[in-house]
């Protein structure tokens, strides 16, 4: 019972705290700020598990190594799930934009209508710039070069595709 209570209670408390803080002032780098809050909560729970057998308010923290790790895994997983979803709120998905545009227009949309929703600059060039910023691509004059970091990162996605036997890339 303690695993479940702590595993769901800590992320819920962070969520409520985040809603209050964001309503007062939203941080400039909000995904980073949220990640920091979640890591801090995880560290605080680890500290409580290590050094307290009971808390002054009468609440008992997870007991023993195994139970503590279980609770930390649950907090970590729920927090990461929330972080991924939160980061997704910020992004524009071309598929969603196309379907929403089709739904809004009564008679449907053409391929040209869908293409007019996007620009190369916003959807391709901006991502290339992002990959350069995080070191997965390198610019030398006009030319783009793949870095080792980029190759390793791409490799992680290529392997499951090979296992599934997928040949055509999506995107």
């Amino acid at each position, binding site marked *: 019972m303690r695993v479940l209570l702590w595993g769901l209670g800590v992320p819920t408390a962070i969520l409520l705290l985040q809603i209050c803080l964001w309503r007062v002032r939203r941080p400039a780098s909000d995904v980073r700020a949220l990640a920091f809050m979640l890591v801090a909560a995880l560290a605080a729970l680890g500290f409580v598990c290590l050094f307290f057998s009971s808390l002054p308010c009468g609440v008992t923290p997870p007991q023993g190594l195994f139970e503590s790790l279980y609770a930390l895994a649950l907090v970590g997983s729920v927090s*990461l*799930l929330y972080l991924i979803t939160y980061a997704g709120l910020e*992004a524009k998905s071309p598929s969603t934009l*196309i379907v929403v545009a089709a739904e809004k227009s009564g008679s449907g949309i053409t391929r040209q209508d869908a293409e007019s929703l*996007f620009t190369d600059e916003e959807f391709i060039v901006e991502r290339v710039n992002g990959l350069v910023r995080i070191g997965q691509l390198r610019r030398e004059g*006009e030319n783009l070069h793949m870095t080792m970091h980029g190759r390793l990162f791409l490799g992680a996605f290529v392997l499951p595709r090979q296992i599934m036997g*997928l040949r055509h890339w999506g*995107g």
Partner: protein
Amino acid sequence: MSNAQLGIHLGVLVTALLCTGIAQLLSVRLSGGRVGVVASLFLGFMVGVAILGLGEGFAVFRAGGALADNLALGLANFVLFVCLWYFYFHFINIGEASLRIRVLREAARFSGRPLADLLAVYNVRTVVGTRMERLVQDGQLVIVGEDRFAAGKPRMVLVAKAFSFLRWLLLGQTATSDPKS
């Protein structure tokens, strides 16, 4: 709660996760691509939930200790399973649908060449073409006339509405606010 009890529940969770991954990968491979990636992920999820349910049913009555503790741990395992499946879903789906990964893959093919070469083969026209083909296959879009597409299954529209609600709840943005790209 004893370590033996926790060990049994952990074993059930790990088994369910392994079976999820194996079922997902094999369903695409063995069907020769007839089962789509997203469908295979949901298939894997159902296999995993079935194994988790059976395993937890066994663990609740066989692991010993208080029934309430075992039920709570079973529920914690279910939450953990859903979270880990969600990460797996995103990992596999990113490999299939992410613009960033596709751009990286094209950059690997065109390494040492200018951006214009990459844009000649991968641009918004190819993105829209690929996406619309996938949306039609998945039933999210339906062809209603010559080169006209209307909304089909409501899943993606519902997801978009759920995200709008979350944006309002968490960020205080209205539907007309422009999210960052």
